[in-house]
Structures are given as C-alpha cells and as structure tokens.
C-alpha cells in the first residue's frame, strides 16, 4: 500500500517537474553558459570569452543608467504602493462610520474594491497603450482634463519631458499595482477579529492610530510579502517602459530589462545580454533576501 502511494504521488509530480526543468531550469542554466560566450544569436557559431562580458558590464554606462532608474523604482514603487494599498484597504474594511452594526468600511466599499481591481484585469500591454495615449500632449486625457478644469497651465508634454517622463511611467506602475494590494491587504484585514477594532475604538483610537497600531502590525506578514513582490516588479518594469516610452526621451527612462532586450534583439549580442540577465538574477535574489531580512519582525500571535 505504501509503495502504491509513492507511485501515485510520483505520477502526479514527475510531469510538472519535468516540464519545469525543461522550460524553466534549462534555459536558466543555458543563460549562464551563453553569458560566457560572444554568441550573436544569428548563427550557431560562438567563441567562449570567459568573463569578458561581465567586465564589459561593469564599464557599460548604458547599463548603469538603466540600473539607476531601477534603483529609483525600487525605492519608490514598494513604499508608495504599499502605503496607498494599506490606506485604501483600511478605508474599505474598517474606515467607515461606526454604528450599531459594528466596524465596517466606507459606503460603497464593494464598488471601490471592484474599481481598484480593474487595472489588474487588463493586460500590461493594454495598460501601456492606454496610458501612452492618456499622456499625449494634445489629444491625451491628462492634459485634456487639466485644460477642462482651467489648469491648462499645468499641461505638459509629459512623456517628452526628461524630468517628468520617468515619473509618468512610475505613476502608471503604481496605478496598475495598487489594486491588487488593496485586495490582498483587504483579505488580510478580514481575518483580523472585529472585536480588536471595536476595543480600539472604545479606547478612543482614531482611524490613523488604528491603522498604524493595529492593522499594520497584524498584517505585517502580508506587507512583507508585498514588499518582496514589488521589489521584483521594480527590478523589471520592462513591459510598461517599452510600450510607453521605449526608454526615451534619450534613454532617460531606460530600465535594465529593456537594456537586456535591446542588447539581444536590437544589437544582436545574445552573449552579452545573457550576462546582463545573469547579473540581474543575482541582484534580484539578493534584494529579495534583503527585503525579507530587513522587514523581519516578531509575529503578533492572536
């Protein structure tokens, strides 16, 4: 019987693991190999160049320029998204007026929850194209709205202004991500016993205090998860940047994913692009570990 059970488990486990090995692990390992060659990606010929690609990487100012943008994203995106997500989620689940029914969300909370989640339903490319048109200087909705309310003086050629273009893309990333975290945090808050909130209210805690002293500590695990997730998103950012600005104006919104892509498919340097990819892997892993370490805290037991 015991033997049969093992076989049973193996039957279910082997096919997915094999697929995973073939389509995820093997390209992974190959990238390491390719990164030590000068393979151009258009013929089977290549030379092994050792670590030359990595040395080149250290002195490539395009790569550093892209990394700097990723670093900005890493500093801004998780913080802004989590703060907004927590704020909206707490308004939706406990921010409403206190009444006989106990603590509840603001009026229309289910509707808001739905609306916040919309961007999550759209594919990234649709979001990119939508916002590209929204930011258009004359026909775009952003400038159109500004002009309609008499703030035409604030209208800008958003994506054409090097000082603003990157922030425009960051804003889209926040917008497209925040809905998911509203739902994630919201689900976490549902699990927090209502009586804790009611007790806090009875003790005279305001909304801000409730959020900072009760919700956040109780949700800390979820926040930590969100942090790692968003850090990884911040190190990528390829799809939205490629669609909205394609790195422009003048490489000022370039990110490392886009650099990798144009090195491989634009400049036909697959070996070097793989080296960028390998370097990014280690960077991503280190940052994920750091994020988990830095946010480690005693868990609150209920």
């Amino acid at each position, binding site marked *: 019987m015991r033997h049969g059970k093992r076989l049973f488990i193996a039957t279910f486990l082997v096919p997915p693991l094999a697929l995973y090995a073939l389509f995820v692990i093997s390209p992974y390992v190959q990238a390491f190999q390719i990164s030590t060659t000068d393979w151009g990606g258009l013929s089977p*010929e290549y030379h092994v160049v050792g670590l030359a690609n990595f040395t080149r990487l250290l002195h490539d100012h395009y790569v550093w320029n892209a990394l700097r943008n990723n670093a900005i994203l890493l500093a801004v995106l998780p913080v802004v998204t989590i703060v907004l997500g927590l704020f909206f989620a707490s308004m939706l689940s406990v921010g409403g007026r206190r009444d006989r029914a106990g603590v509840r969300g603001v009026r229309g909370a289910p509707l808001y929850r739905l609306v916040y989640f919309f961007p999550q339903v759209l594919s990234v490319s649709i979001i990119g194209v939508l916002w590209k048109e929204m930011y258009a200087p004359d026909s775009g909705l952003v400038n159109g709205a500004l002009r309609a309310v008499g703030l035409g003086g604030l209208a800008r050629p958003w994506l054409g202004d090097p000082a603003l273009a990157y922030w425009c893309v960051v804003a889209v990333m926040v917008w497209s991500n925040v809905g998911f975290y509203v739902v994630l945090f919201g689900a976490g808050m549902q699990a927090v016993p209502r009586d804790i909130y009611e007790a806090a209210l009875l003790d005279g805690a305001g909304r801000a205090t409730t959020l900072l002293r009760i919700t956040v500590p109780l949700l800390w*695990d979820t926040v930590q998860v969100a942090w*790692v*997730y968003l850090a*990884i998103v911040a190190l990528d950012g390829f799809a939205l940047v490629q669609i909205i600005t394609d790195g422009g104006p003048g490489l000022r919104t370039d990110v490392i994913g886009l650099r*990798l892509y144009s090195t491989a498919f634009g400049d036909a340097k697959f070996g070097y692009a793989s080296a960028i990819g390998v370097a990014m892997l280690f960077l991503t892993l280190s940052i*994920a570990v750091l994020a988990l370490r830095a946010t480690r805290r005693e868990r609150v037991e209920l």
Partner: protein
Amino acid sequence: MRPASIHDAPVTRRRLLTRAATAGAVVVAAAGLPGCAMAGGARRETARGKKNSENPLGVSETAPLEVVIFNGGFGEEYARAHEAMYRQRHPKAEVRHTATQEIAKTLQPRFVDGSPPDVVDNSGAGQIDFNGLVSQGALTELAPLLDAPSLDDPGRTVRETLLPGSLLPGTYNGRTMALNYTYTAYGIWYSAKLLADHGWHYPRTWDEMIALCKVVKAAGIAPWTYQGKYPRYMSWPILAAAAKLAGPQVLVAIDNLEPNAWKHDAVKAAADAYYQLAVDGYILPGSEGMDHIQSQTEWCRGNAVFISCGSWLENEQKAVTPAGFQMTVAPTPNLTAGDKLPFAALRGTTGEPFVVPAKAHNVAGGFEYLRIMLSKQGAADFTRKVASLTCVRGAADGLPLPPGLASVTKALTASGDATFNWVYNSYYRKLERTLVDAACGDLFTRRITPAEFVAQCQRGADEIARDSSVAKYRRG
C-alpha cells in the same frame, strides 16, 4: 475567533518565494531561448537545377520556396502577386508565404537552427540587425542575381535595370548582401493647398524659411512639428542641409565613422540653422511628447505646416489625410548661396531590404524570386498596390500616382545626379536609433546647444568605432 487568521501567512510567503525565483528565472530566460538555444541543425545542401538561357540562375523546378514578408506599412498582398509570378514560371514548385510584424522574434531561432526561409523581407521595428547578420555570415551575397540577365531584357543584367545608388544601403564592404526594394525620398513635407490658401511659397533658402516661419506663426499656425518621441526624424534635414552645404563627402565621412566627421563645420552650421526653429518657438508646442502618428496627424489637421519625413508618409497617413490636402515633398532649403549642391538635391535611398539567407534550402529560388520582383511587371504591380516607388528604373512610368508620390517622383527627377544618401543607420543601427536620436531630442527641446549636439553625436560615433564587438563597414 474565526478559523482563518494571519497564521496562514507563512504559506503565502513560501508560495511567494517560489514565484520570486520564477520571476528571476524569466528575466534570465528572456536572454536565451528555451531548448538548445545555440545548437545548429544539420547543414542541408541547397537545391540546384540546370542552368540555361530560360533558367539562368539554375533554379530547381521542384524545390519549394519559402517567403517571409514583413507585414507593415506595405501589407503582404503585393508579395502574393510576386509569388504567383514565381508559380507561373516554375509550376512544379510549392511556394510558402508567411507574413509577420516581428521578423527578429520569428526568425532568429531559425537562423540559429540553420533552417531559415529562402527570402526574408527584413524590415520594420523588429528587423534583425544587419550588422549582426552580415558579420555572422548569415546572408548570401547577391552578386549572382545582380549579374544575371533581367527578366524583361536578356541583354541587360539585373544590376543595369536598377536606379543609381540603389544597392548602396545593402552593400557591406563592397559585397551586396541585401536588396532594398523600395525607393524613398527624404525631405520636408507640406500641404500644397495650405500654402496656396495663404499665398505662401516653399522657401529655397534657410533665411526665407525663417522669414516664412515668422509669417506662419503670426497667422496662428505652428510652422513646424516633428516626431517628438523619435526625434531622429529631425537628424535627416540636418544631415541633408549639411550635405548640400559642403557636398556629399560629409556623409561618407559619417558613414565611415571617421574621426570628427560629425564635428564638420557643415553639420554644425546645419544644426545651428534648425536649432533656430526651437529658439524662435516655431515648433508646435508639445511636439516632443508625441509619437510619429500623433505628430503627423497634427500636421495633417493643419496645425503645423512643415514636417520632416520619408515618402512612406502618404501611405502612413492615408486614413487621416483630408481630401484635397495635396501632400508634397520638397528638398531642404539651402543654407547659403554658395552651397555645393543645388536646391533640388535631396536624399534618395532604397529601403525595405530583402535578403536570401546563407543557409536557405533554395538559394537559387530566392534569387529567382528577387529577379521576378525586379521585373517591370513585378515592380509596377508593387507601386500600384502600395503607392511606393521601387528601385527599378522606369517601372512607375505611366502609372497613375497619388499626389504625394507624384511629388516624390518629380522631386527625384529634379534632383537627378545631385541625389545623395547616407547609410550609417544601416551599418550601425544603434548609432542612429539610440545615440543620434537622443541628441536630436535634446537639441529641439533646447536642453543642449548645436555645438553640444555635434559633440554628442560624435561621442556616439566614437563609441561605436571603439567597440570591438561591432563589425565595421566602409563605403566609397
């Protein structure tokens, strides 16, 4: 207490870490394609047939032919007509037709595998980098095709039926590796109706241009706009004006990455001239934030008078061009009275590169297909279908042309032997698409001066010249 609580969180976290690892893997995997990315397939012999006067290229009658077309501004219908002509000549051969917008993504693995198609229209934003294709030996040299007798007149070779300069953009260190099929004029575009309605005339000198801009602006219209997100479009009139000022040798130096080629006085003078448009506020506000379609549409709506573009503009704007717009191309105005080239001189170049991969299974069939495209019938059919000229001499004679294309034909005839061209963009894609592009963006938003502009372009060119991983090409 309810059963569900935050005690469940660690599970989420574990799942999350798996996902994190996967996300990392995707970043890496993006660089190498799944499967054995670098392994090549077995080398197959290319199909051959008997050479005779009817079949000068020695096409095998039974070998299938595979054609991949870039499905962009020209669509794919024109190719079906060429394929039908091929079938007519070689009824036993099967012709496979594919069209895609992503040439590089679709074909890159097949090049590596050693099983590429027989003819590829390597065009569009997703084209495969030519520097890489040529330096990695992925293409067949087209000399046998060019020296074969043409389809219409066995007394003349295919080479002799082409417009002068047609082969320059596809020629690398003297070897022609790509056939650029369309013939494109680059210049400054305007609506002849708009100019006539206001009683304005297209300026022949730069001083007249600035004077006209003043009048246009006073009339409440922006004199210029440009494809702000792809500001390299504005490098074209600058280089054209420089070539007209000091002669086309300036362009040869740039193509050959000669030291200080961009710092030539003529390039600086041209940059100075066009910079004036930004300084005097003659550019449609917000242009820098528009992509090519957005800015060209503003121009079609009459919100700007002039725009720099190539002759695909008419086709690209077909849907939004008002009736009676009379789209017209003109050469760049002369910078001085002493310019080396006359006013009529403009950039004429071939585009839409067709290649026959080195490892194609039917190289002779690929050549034959190109020979058919270059016949009078094949070329005239292309012009009729997509409203673009081809590199075939006289193929558009007598065809009814839309207004923009008619003006292109006229401009090219007027330009004649003074027509010039540059090819650094096809030698070193990145130099134009990234580096010069960035410099133009900064120049026309006045973040840098013309002197800094030429210095920045020069830095980009020097960087490419120093980079040992980029193959270098020279022209005469």
